[in-house]
C-alpha cells in the first residue's frame, strides 16, 4: 500500500477517535459542574481538561478564564482551533477524501455526511442542545467505526485504521485519567465527593456499568484507574489498546519496523505483566506523563517506518 495512503488512513481514524474523546472529556466536565462544586472548582476542572489535552496555551491566547461557555466553545466549535471537535471531524473527512478510492463508499459517505452535518454546529448552539451535540459526536463515531468494521477489507488499510484508532485511544484514556488526577476536586466531604467525581468519569467513558460488574464495590480513584489501565478485556483500557497496537503493527511489519515492534512489545509487557501497585508507587500522575511521552515516541516511529519514509 502507498505510504501516503496509509498515512491518511491512520490520521483519518486518529482524528475521528480524537473528536469522540474530546466530546467525552467535555461531557465529563459538564457533568462534574453539575455536582455541588464552587465556581472556582468548576473552573479548575476545565483548566485541568485544557492542560491534559495540551491546548491550554492556545486557549489562553484568546480567552481570559476557563469558564464553562468559552471552554466548551473552544473545545467543540472553534474553527480556528485544530483540536476542536468540528475541526477533528473535518480533518478526518479530508483524510478520507484523499483516500476515497481505498475505503469503501459506505465509509466515505458516512464520514462525509458527518462532516456536512457538523457544519451546522457552531457557537450558536444553545446551552440546552449542547448535550445532544456531544451525544451526536459519540453516535457518529460509533457509526463510522461500525461501517469500517462491516465493510473494509481486512488488509493493510484496515490495519492502519486500527493502529490509528488505538494509539489515539490509549493517548486519550491516559489524558482523561490525568485530568482527573490533576483536578484537585470539589472539597467538602472528601470521600463522597471523590466517589461521585470518578463515577462521572466512568459514565463519560461509557464504562460505569462495566465497573459495577467487575468490582461490585465503591468507586475510588485507584479502582477506576486500575480498570482503565490494566483490564485487557475492556476496549477503552490502555492495556487493550496496546494489545491491538501490537498485533496491528505485527501485521504490517516491514524491514524497517523491528525496533518499533520491539518498543510496543516492551510497553505492552509493562501492562500485561506489571503490577498496578508498582504504578501507584511511582506516582500515578508521573506515570501517566511518562507513558504519554513513550506513546508520542511510538507515533513518530510509526510515521518514519510506514507513513512518511525517507525513501
Amino acid at each position: 500500500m502507498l505510504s501516503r495512503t496509509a498515512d491518511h488512513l491512520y490520521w483519518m481514524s486518529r482524528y475521528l477517535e480524537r473528536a469522540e474523546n474530546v466530546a467525552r472529556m467535555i461531557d465529563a466536565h459538564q457533568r462534574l459542574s453539575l455536582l455541588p462544586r464552587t465556581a472556582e472548582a468548576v473552573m479548575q476542572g476545565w483548566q485541568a481538561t485544557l492542560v491534559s489535552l495540551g491546548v491550554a496555551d492556545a486557549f489562553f491566547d484568546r480567552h481570559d478564564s476557563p469558564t464553562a461557555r468559552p471552554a466548551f466553545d473552544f473545545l467543540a466549535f472553534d474553527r480556528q482551533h485544530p483540536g476542536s471537535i468540528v475541526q477533528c471531524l473535518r480533518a478526518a473527512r479530508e483524510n478520507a477524501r484523499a483516500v476515497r478510492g481505498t475505503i469503501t463508499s459506505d465509509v466515505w459517505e458516512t464520514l462525509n455526511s458527518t462532516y456536512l452535518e457538523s457544519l451546522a454546529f457552531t457557537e450558536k448552539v444553545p446551552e440546552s442542545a449542547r448535550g445532544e451535540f456531544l451525544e451526536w459526536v459519540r453516535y457518529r463515531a460509533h457509526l463510522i467505526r461500525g461501517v469500517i468494521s462491516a465493510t473494509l477489507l481486512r488488509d493493510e488499510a484496515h490495519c492502519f485504521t486500527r493502529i490509528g484508532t488505538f494509539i489515539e485511544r490509549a493517548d486519550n484514556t491516559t489524558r482523561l485519567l490525568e485530568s482527573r488526577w490533576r483536578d484537585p476536586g470539589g472539597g467538602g466531604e472528601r470521600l463522597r465527593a471523590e466517589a461521585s467525581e470518578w463515577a462521572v468519569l466512568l459514565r463519560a467513558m461509557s464504562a460505569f456499568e462495566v465497573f459495577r460488574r467487575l468490582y461490585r464495590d465503591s468507586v475510588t480513584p485507584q479502582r477506576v484507574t486500575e480498570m482503565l489501565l490494566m483490564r485487557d478485556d475492556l476496549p477503552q483500557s490502555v492495556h487493550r489498546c496496546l494489545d491491538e497496537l501490537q498485533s496491528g503493527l505485527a501485521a504490517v511489519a516491514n524491514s524497517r519496523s523491528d525496533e518499533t515492534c520491539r518498543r510496543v512489545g516492551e510497553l505492552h509487557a509493562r501492562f500485561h505483566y506489571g503490577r498496578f501497585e508498582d504504578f501507584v508507587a511511582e506516582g500515578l500522575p508521573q506515570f501517566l506523563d511518562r507513558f504519554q511521552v513513550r506513546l508520542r515516541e511510538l507515533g513518530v516511529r510509526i510515521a518514519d517506518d510506514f507513513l512518511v519514509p525517507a525513501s
Partner: protein
Amino acid sequence: MRASPYDEMLEASGGPRSHCSDYWRWLEVQPQERLAQKRSEADALFHRVGITFAVYGENSGTERLIPFDIVPRIIPAQEWTRLEAGLAQRVRALNRFIADVYHDQEILRAGVIPAKRVLCNAQYRPEMQGLEVPGGIYAHIAGIDVVRDASGTFRVLEDNLRVPSGVSYMLENRKMMMRLFPELFAHHAVAPVEHYPDLLLENLKSVAPTGVSDPTVVLLTPGMYNSAYFEHAFLAQQMGIELVEGQDLFVLDDALYMRTTRGPQRVDVVYRRVDDDFLDPLSFRPDSTLGVPGLLTVYRAGHVTIANAIGTGLADDKSIYPYVPEMIRFYLAEAPLLENVHTWILDDPEDRAYALDHLEELVVKEVHGAGGYGMLIGPAASAIQIEDFRRRIRAHPERYIAQPTLALSTSPTFSAAGVAPRHIDLRPFVLSGRDVAIVPGGLTRVALREGSLVVNSSQGGGTKDTWVLGP
C-alpha cells in the same frame, strides 16, 4: 439570419422523434412536483457522495456540484454507429499525426500542414523527437467534443488529447438515472457504459513497456484540491489501481518507483492527470511540486509508459484543428466521416480580412484557450466587445481563430419553468491501445441558461445522462 436549432427529441412540428416517442410520452405525464423532487434528490445524493469540485479562488471550504439534469439525451442506434466510426477514424489519424511529427514529419514535407504551425507551436515538445512509444500510441484517452448543427449534422468542435476529463460524470449520471427512474430502464434498451473502467485498465495495460508481463498501473493526480480530484479518485478506485501524487513517486536507476508501506514498488504505466508542464521539474517547469524529478529520463529510456504521452497538445491545438480532415486523407487514405466546423485562421491574411468584416456573426476563440474563457460570441456581444476583439486580433492574429456561430442542437431540459429546450454538446471518450474502443454515448453537457451556447461547467453548464438506444 440564423437557422433555428435542431432539437434532439422533438420534430419541428412539436411531436417527438420516433426514437424518443416512448420517453416523451412518459415525460409528458410526469407531474412537475415529482420531477422537482427527483431533481433535489439527485442534488442531495451528489453532495453526500461528494461528487463535487473545488472552485478556484474561493474559500477552501466551498465545494460545488455540477448541476445534473434529469432529462436524458437520447441517441438512436444507427446515428451512434456512424458517429462511432467517425470518432475512431479521427483519433486513429490524430495518433498517426503525432507519431509522424515526432519522427519523420512526412506530413510537413508533403506541405499538407505548414511546418511553422507545428514546430513553432508551444505544445510541440522537442524532447519527444525520435522517441518510440509502445504501439505508437500517444493519445490513449481522447475526449472529442461533438455538436450538432441546425441541419442535424454532427460536427467535431474540438479534440481534447491532453488530459480530457468528465468521464466520471458520464458514469455517475447513469448511476443516478437508474436510481431515480428505474422504471425507464425497464422499457428502454439503453446501451451500458459501466464497463468503461475495465476498458481503460485493459487499454493502459496493453501499452506497458515491452517485456513487462504484469504491469503496475497508477493514476497520477495533482491532489485533492484539483477540481477534477473526484474523477481521479473514482477512476483509480474503479480500476483498482493506486492513486498517486508526485510525492509518492521517485526515480532510481532509470526506473520509476512508488513509496509503499513495504518499501519501493516498481511502476510501469502512469495514467497521468497532470499537465505536461508539471510532470518533471528537471525537464519542464522547475517550480512544479506535482511531478516527479527525473520522470522524463525514465520515459526516454522506455522504462515507463505515460498516458497520454507527453506532447500530444500540439494535435488538439485550435490552430491545428482545421487540418484534421486533411490528416485523415493523408494517413488513412479515407474520406473523413465526421465533419469539422469551418474555421478561419486569423494569421492568414485572407481569413483575417473576412473575419474582421464579419465579427458580429462569428465566434472568436483563443488558440490556446479552454474552458469557455476568452471567447467572443459575435451575435451575443456588444459593439464595445466586438471592437475590443478587433483590436486584439489585429495586434496578435496568430492567437485567434474564428468559426461561424453554430446553432447548437437543443434538448428538453428540466428548468424552474418546466421542461424547456437548452443547448447541448457531446463528449465521447475514445480509448486507443491495441484497438480503439468507445463506450456508447459520452458526456452530454448542457447550457442551463436560456439561449446560452456555453456548456462549460465553469460557465454555468450542467450535464445529462446520455442514452444510446439499442437497434
